[in-house]
């Protein structure tokens, strides 16, 4: 079984991200593997253990995104590929999906593609469905667990209304949610292996696809309106009075 896990590199979630001269700035904060994608790597590694699958991490990004791929390697992925090209500066989700699909076809013989449920940067959460559509493969999205039985893949889909059991035959495209299990920490051996790994870089020419024109583009980047409301600490002479005062204040907001 051959699994491709698609990852992205994003600013650390602790980063103070601001708009500066029309650009996104995260200061000195590090770029890391998208936290949701760590779950995708974890899901892939679980299948590696269960089925003896071979796991390849795939990422679109600049040269520096190799660090995110190395994290996946250190966790236990067998190989990694970076798709990098100067033509990819303006990429929307549709374009990303077309390139990922082309790279997956080039890898060849892939049985499962696994995504995290969204990224922390743009956060659209569209790429799983769009990649599946470009490939023409069935999608099993929001998987909290994955079971493979021969050619059939069955997942527990975690949605707001409950849990569905859905299935499809390989090749399939999946996304995973947190219930797949906490991502494992890279092992010492894994980190050593990853640090030595040579990660191939594929250009658009290599994947046989021209840079898709972006249909969705940004016209303005803004810092959110600041909410400068000082906190009013409510305190009465007794907890009962405090509760009463707080309830009054909330009711006076006329939001209930």
């Amino acid at each position, binding site marked *: 079984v051959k699994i491709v896990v698609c990852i992205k590199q994003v600013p650390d979630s602790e980063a103070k991200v601001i*708009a500066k001269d029309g650009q996104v700035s995260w200061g000195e904060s590090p770029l890391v593997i998208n936290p949701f994608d760590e779950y995708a790597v974890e899901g892939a590694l679980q299948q590696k253990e269960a089925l003896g699958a071979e796991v390849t991490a795939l990422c679109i990004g600049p040269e520096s995104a190799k660090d995110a791929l190395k994290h996946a390697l250190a966790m236990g992925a067998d190989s990694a590929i970076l798709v990098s090209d100067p033509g990819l500066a303006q990429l929307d989700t549709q374009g990303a999906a077309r390139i990922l699909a082309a790279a997956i076809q080039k890898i060849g013989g892939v049985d499962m593609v696994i995504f995290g449920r969204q990224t922390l940067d743009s*956060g659209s959460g569209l790429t*799983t469905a769009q990649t599946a559509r470009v490939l023409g493969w*069935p999608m099993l999205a929001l998987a909290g667990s994955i079971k493979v039985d021969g050619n059939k893949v069955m997942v527990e889909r975690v949605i707001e*209304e409950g849990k569905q059991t*859905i299935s499809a035959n390989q090749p399939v495209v999946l996304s995973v949610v947190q219930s797949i299990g906490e991502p494992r920490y890279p092992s010492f051996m894994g980190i050593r292996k990853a640090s030595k790994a040579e990660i191939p870089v594929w250009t658009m020419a290599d994947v046989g696809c021209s840079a898709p024109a972006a249909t969705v583009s940004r016209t303005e*980047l803004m810092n959110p309106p600041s909410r400068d409301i000082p906190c009013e600490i*409510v305190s009465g002479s007794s907890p009962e009075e405090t509760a009463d005062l707080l309830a009054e204040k909330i009711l006076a907001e006329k*939001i209930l």
Partner: protein
Amino acid sequence: MKTWVYIDHFKGEIVPASWEAVGVGKTFGPVTALVFGSNAEALAQAAFEYGADEVLLADDPALADFRAEAYASTLTALATDANPDLILLPTTFRAKEMAAMSAIDLNSGVIVDATALAADGDKLVVTRPIYEGKLQEKVVCASKPQFITLRGRAFPRPAREAGRSGTLTKVAAKADAKTTVEGYAAGESGVSLGDAGVIVSGGRGVSNNPSLGLDEKETAKKGFELVGALAGVLGGAVGASRAAVDAGYVPYSHQVGQTGKVVSPDLYIAAGISGAIQHIVGIRTAKVVVAINKDAEAPIFQVARYGVVGDLFTFLPLLTEAFKKKLGK
């Protein structure tokens, strides 16, 4: 502007944000609502009552379960025939999946999680949060149809007008899904976080009450009962911080914040939540935040409108009682 609105539902239960989308669509002219499902005529009638002028109804046993592939193909076929300028959808996983796929078919773009829209001719300039709400961007879609999903509770919900009717057009389903829905287990009933006007959330602090003499999980269970009681009186939903979910106090479906749900209630009460940045980003658009915490230095107070420094085990029952009295419950 030729405007379509997708009415999202799960087993016939319509996601209320669909009506918000109808309301937004009406500001651009007549609205055609899309209702897909099996035995879904009642949903079409509801769409008229919330303001749709026309409903395209794909009623087919093959659409009984939502499967993104089949729903997307049905939408693609309709849009190919009729060339709408704009397709509005509520931001739900289902609607996003189907818009994502149909946009690939139609070679167009999807803009997710709109919080404001401005028309510029027949193009829309969409404001949306990115980087978990740390930033906002304005984006446009250069192609048609423009697929735009609207964040729940970001736009007003139109009133229902009983008996209102419109033109019902039955359309064909394209049932080409290669996935099978084999089973379903309902989640907990109750108000969903995305639609909730009031959310009361618990964090790590709900397990901190040595005086009960219980272990951590049992204490947390008691604590969440108090959180639930207050939510109940206010007609709200129960939320939780990641710490509380990771510790196993409540299921993941309650998680608010970066890796959980981004919520926009009118009132958000955080009990025993310290206020990690990952939690704060999930409640940025709440109208009024109330923090209850033992630790006066907890960062949650920096984003709260009102704060109470105290023990939630003492305070939550008192607050519940106070609301019961004042609301006449």
